[in-house]
């Protein structure tokens, strides 16, 4: 578009025309909420009335151990589940890419299948599976792995484990597919050259595969982190509203409860969501710096 004059202007106008409808939607449903949240964040709500409290909501957050606990759970899930899942996804991707030839396509489908379930659907399924008198406990008791039923949903530790296991089940295949695509784009000549040089398979993996996969791993990490910060469906349905006793409460769930279940204090809820955005941003930034200068 190096033309000048009226033709340039004509093209430019067309460009704006194309972008306009999307921008209308964006302004209404993204910009406006973001801007109006600035109004809510400084007010304390009670029913239909609200009062100005300045930074009061943030002060309250500093004292709110439940919110801090919820954030703690978000971090817990992030630092345990995401590495576990990426590790598993990597192994599976490598196996499918290099380990076997037969049934590769079928296995790809099999591992990816959990992703077609909605978060609600699989939360429901897992919740029924993991009841004290449910299938998993029955199987484990019959196999004499455990003596008495495990309180998967009854005990905070097991409930947290349940969430981690459920998330891993749901998302490993998804990330595996990412890694597969990444692996397939690595030129096999590089490996051949390394073979000639006498590098073992393991060394090839660490010296060639991993570094070349770093952008994909970064993408996985960033999207998974962002998803984990927003965790809502699973703690709401699988462990029944962040139970037992706040054992799996997450930030998003707590925000929702403050706004719609407990007090309808929209101001406080909005303030908390600001903090969540801030933390998400910091994580994304740190990850990008650590794992490579990916341009996004």
């Amino acid at each position, binding site marked *: 578009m190096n033309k000048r004059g009226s033709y340039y202007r004509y093209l430019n106008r067309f460009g704006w025309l194309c972008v306009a409808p999307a921008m209308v939607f964006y302004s209404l449903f993204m910009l406006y909420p973001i801007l109006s949240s600035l109004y809510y964040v400084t007010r304390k709500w009670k029913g239909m009335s609200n009062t100005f409290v300045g930074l009061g909501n943030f002060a309250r957050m500093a004292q709110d151990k439940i919110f801090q606990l919820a954030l703690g759970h978000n971090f817990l899930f992030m630092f345990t589940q995401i590495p576990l899942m990426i590790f598993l996804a990597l192994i599976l991707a490598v196996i499918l890419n290099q380990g076997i030839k037969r049934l590769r396509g079928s296995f790809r489908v099999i591992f990816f299948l959990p992703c077609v379930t909605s978060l609600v659907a699989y939360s429901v399924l897992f919740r029924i599976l993991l009841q004290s008198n449910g299938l998993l406990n029955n199987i484990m008791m019959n196999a004499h792995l455990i003596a008495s039923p495990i309180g998967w949903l*009854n005990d*905070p530790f097991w409930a947290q484990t349940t969430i981690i296991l459920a998330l891993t089940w749901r998302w490993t295949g998804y990330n595996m597919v990412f890694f597969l695509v990444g692996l397939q784009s690595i030129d096999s000549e590089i490996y051949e050259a390394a073979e000639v040089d006498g590098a073992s398979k393991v060394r090839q993996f660490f010296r060639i595969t991993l570094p070349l996969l770093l952008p994909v791993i970064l993408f996985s990490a960033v999207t998974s982190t962002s998803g984990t910060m927003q965790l809502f469906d699973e703690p709401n349905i699988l462990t029944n509203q962040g139970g*037992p006793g706040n054992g799996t409460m997450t930030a998003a769930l707590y925000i929702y409860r403050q706004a719609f279940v407990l007090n309808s204090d929209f101001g406080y809820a909005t303030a908390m969501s600001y903090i969540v955005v801030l933390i998400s941003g910091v994580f994304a930034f740190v990850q990008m710096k650590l794992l490579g200068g990916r341009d996004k």
Partner: protein
Amino acid sequence: MKKGLVFALALILFAALVPGLSAADAKKVTVWCWDPNFNGYSMKQAAAVYNKAHPDVTIEIVDIPENIEGKITAGLQAGGSGLPDIALFQDFRIEQFLQDYPQGFVDLKAAGVDYSKFAAYKVGPMTVGKSIYGIPFDTGSTGLWLRADMIKAAGLNPDSYMGKNLKWSDIVKLGLAVKAKTGKALIAYDTTNYDFIRIMVQSTGTQFFNKDGSLNLRTPALKAAIAQVKDLNDKGILYLTEGWNNWISAFNNGDSAGLLQALWIIGTLKSKPENAGKWMVIPTPLLEGVAGAQNASNNGGSSWYVFASSPNKALALDFLKSTWASSTPAALAFYNDILKQCGAMGTYLPSRTGTNYTAPDEYFYKSQAVFKDFSAWMEKVPVLMYTANYQTMNTAVKNAVLPLLQGKTKSIDDVLTAAETEYKQTSGQ
């Protein structure tokens, strides 16, 4: 093609965006409530009474199983859009709503309802100044429900427990015996629910809040209640469940031999006809060592409210006045029927003359006249004060008790401190 596309787009957009035409159906009243076996059923019977005289009116009863208060909050925040005409509120939640949304509800006293005909303790929570907002519905008189057949199986005679004013220590003995012989835990206990402790505390008339609305958890009653629950659990007498519906299936399917609950659970019990003849109910056990303790308590109870935003206010009011607040034979008959069918003991004083109030009920063991018993027990319960923060307190205490039952918290003092802390943080005061 371009024009066709744009036109199709516009058509689809139009179809999607025009909200369903909701010109208020002139002869329709919508009611929101939960528990189709109890509340839903009762409202249906009332509707049937009204429809005899007004066949052209449609009364639609919508079952809202999940977070009805949240949906109502959403609707009230929206200035009433999406709300029904009538909704059911638990007595311990309504104060918060009346405080937060003073313009949201219709003043029924001003609309001509005669409150002298309703039990005084129900009218308390729905009163704000000179206005009264609800139609009282059911009482939450409580008892300890037991499976007579399982007690027999443990080698004991159920009749020796019938109608007895027992202490919790007696129940412990019973529980141990049943456990030893049948392996079943005596009482189903829902760890996600506050009812059990609440029933115990409220049997002594103790409140959770001071007169000025501030929290008071350090009462002898609450401490004793928590200690008692721990004791029951340590001795294996409680069947712990992790959810309301798991709790229901625990006693309905015979995984446990009983439950501590108000009479409104009858609808749920009766939904299992195969358990006919097996259930009996005895007075709420006494919480020993606490002043004011009685063998009676109250748990719950709800009332009907009309939203100010309702398009069919007048019709809704007429419906309520002609059924729930009416002494016509048809109305009294319906009160009599819902009592027997689902244990809905209304608090409309003239309805107490109904035959079912004293008659034996063949569903129960030896046709126990359960309602006569609940009626008598109800007389003993003092008025309770709820405040707008009851739900928050509720959540805080039950969250704090769970770790005690799992052996994580060691002392009752720690439990109370944890509850106070959580209450302070979630309520912001």
